């Protein structure tokens, strides 16, 4: 008898989730429709490929950022970290080319270096945050300045460029692909799917959400809070390295302006996607939608020229706010 009401309550819980789920997707669909209306080439294979491929850097990083934010953290350093890792990678690859010639091993070494230096950079952030106990905001603001300076210094104020022949060899990693789908898109999709699975179906993902929701409860539930939190930063670092692996063949160079404001874009994508900035709840697919929304805004502004380019930023800002309004509307009963 007393269990009878159990079935009844289920509907509102579902409806609320549905609204939050639908929000960003509606915004995305709206943008696609606007794009189609504005330019017939919008849905062309080339344009879609371009947009998706260039979203992949921020996208891969934003997946990692989702874990960090879900666990109650933040990382402002990813943009300059990416620049620094890219610079280091190019520098070392150029050195190796002198020794080994324009060969695949040089690329492998470069890739390994990017991943490892991303890992180390993430580890440094994570250790400062978890072991020394400084606010993530301050640590990563600090390392943001540090990496940005280091790349400027490595590049001597200018641009670090991969040797021309090496660039040709490495180029297909961004521009090539299989079955007409380019590698960065495949990489992004793979990272997103794995991320979604890890977030929702593994102990690690569950632990991130628990820590972000209530650190003390997590500790009392014998979760190794510091270790998990550290892992989120390391994971993000590795993903930054991975994004760089895809990025370098695109431009073949790195400079002080590489990756500028990527951190803001990545965080914005995560939040637009419905992850809570305070931690405790995160969803990877939402982040993917967020990344696509941000990319599409830029793309659509390039499709037309009905506004002064000075105002691009204003439209971008307005659309970001609108996308989230859509999502919060109706879920505003908090």
């Amino acid at each position, binding site marked *: 008898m007393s269990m009878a009401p159990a079935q009844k309550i289920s509907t509102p819980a579902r409806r609320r989730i549905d609204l939050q789920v639908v929000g960003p997707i509606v915004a995305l669909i709206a943008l696609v429709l606007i794009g189609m209306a504005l330019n017939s080439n919008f849905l062309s294979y080339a344009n879609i490929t371009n947009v998706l491929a*260039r979203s992949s*850097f921020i996208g891969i990083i934003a997946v990692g950022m989702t874990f960090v934010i879900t666990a109650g953290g933040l990382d402002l350093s990813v943009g300059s970290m990416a620049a620094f890792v890219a610079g280091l990678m190019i520098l070392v690859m150029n050195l190796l080319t002198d020794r080994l010639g324009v060969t695949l091993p040089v690329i492998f070494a470069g890739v390994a270096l990017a991943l490892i230096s991303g890992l180390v950079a993430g580890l440094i952030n994570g250790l400062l945050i978890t072991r020394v106990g400084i606010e993530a905001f301050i640590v990563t603001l600090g390392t943001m300045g540090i990496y940005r300076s280091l790349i400027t210094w490595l590049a001597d*104020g200018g641009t670090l460029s991969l040797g*021309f022949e090496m660039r040709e060899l490495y180029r297909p990693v961004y521009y090539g692909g299989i079955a007409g789908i380019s590698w960065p898109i495949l990489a992004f999709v793979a990272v997103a799917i794995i991320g979604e699975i890890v977030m929702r179906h593994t102990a690690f993902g569950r632990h991130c959400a628990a820590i972000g929701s209530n650190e003390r409860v997590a500790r009392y539930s014998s979760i190794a809070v510091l270790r998990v939190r550290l892992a989120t930063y390391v994971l993000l670092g590795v993903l930054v390295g991975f994004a760089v692996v895809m990025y370098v063949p*695109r431009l073949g160079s790195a400079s002080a302006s590489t990756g500028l404001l990527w951190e803001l874009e990545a965080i914005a994508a995560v939040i637009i996607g419905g992850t809570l900035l305070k931690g405790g709840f995160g969803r990877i697919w939402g982040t993917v939608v967020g990344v696509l929304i941000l990319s599409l805004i830029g793309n659509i502004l390039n499709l037309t020229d009905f506004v002064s380019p000075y105002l691009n930023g204003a439209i971008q800002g307005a659309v970001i706010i609108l996308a989230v309004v859509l999502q919060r509307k109706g879920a505003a009963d908090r």
Partner: protein
Amino acid sequence: ETIGVSIPAATHGWAGALNFHAERTVERLEKVYPDLDFVLTTTPDSATQVSDLEDMVATRGIDALVVLPFESEPLTGPIQRIADSGTWVTVVDRGLAVDGIENLYVAGDNNSFGRTAGEYFAETLDEGAKVVVMRGIPSTVDNERVAGFEAAIDGAGIEVLAMDHGNWNRDTAFTLMQDWLSRFGQIDAVWAADDDMAVGALAAIEQAGRTGEMFVVGGAGMKEMVDRIRSGDKSVPVNVTYPPAMISTAIEMTAAGIVGNAPMSGDFIIASELITLDNADDFYFEDSPY
């Protein structure tokens, strides 16, 4: 037919002027050539610029491209591919890393920009004079300018007390100059690799009450600076040109080329000139925003 124009965003004075001229020119040419369509994009960094170029090709089907590369190296590949597909390419100001890609090249000469200022320093200043140097945002452009300047003063016995980045920004330059003024009892001249920074430096010098002590040479021919030269201001004896209006030239020549009546190609290098009291009137444009 469509012409794509891609330039850096207006993040400092000179780039702002560049934007101004580009927009005006596009507006004017759209009237002059009713058949021509223009796509104007502005970019905060190289990666975005590559994205913009991709979009122009994929969705706007441009027939010609006027581009001021944010950075040379990273843009070389993408622009080369556009050129290879048969699109007319005009490169403005920053040369590409590989020669022969562009159909038309319209540029200032950053090395000459620094050299012109440096030569003035070497001529005017006595041996043992002390100067400070305010650089721009770390970039190839900045490196070239400074290299030109350093080469020109080499051997003139001029001591560079300090050199730091004012980031082409008035506020940063003001702060930097304030601190240099506290640090150095004697400064004979300031070279600021851009007029925005010169404005900041001058304000700091004025505040410190050391106006008579040193002169400031900026660059790019900002209206305000030219005006001060015109009026014989001792603090601002000369300036070095680096006309942002070069973008207008480039767009106009490209449009003309596309329309087909006067195909123009080749290199148009606009060397920097020294603006002095004598010729300042020629460089003063009342309605320019810069």
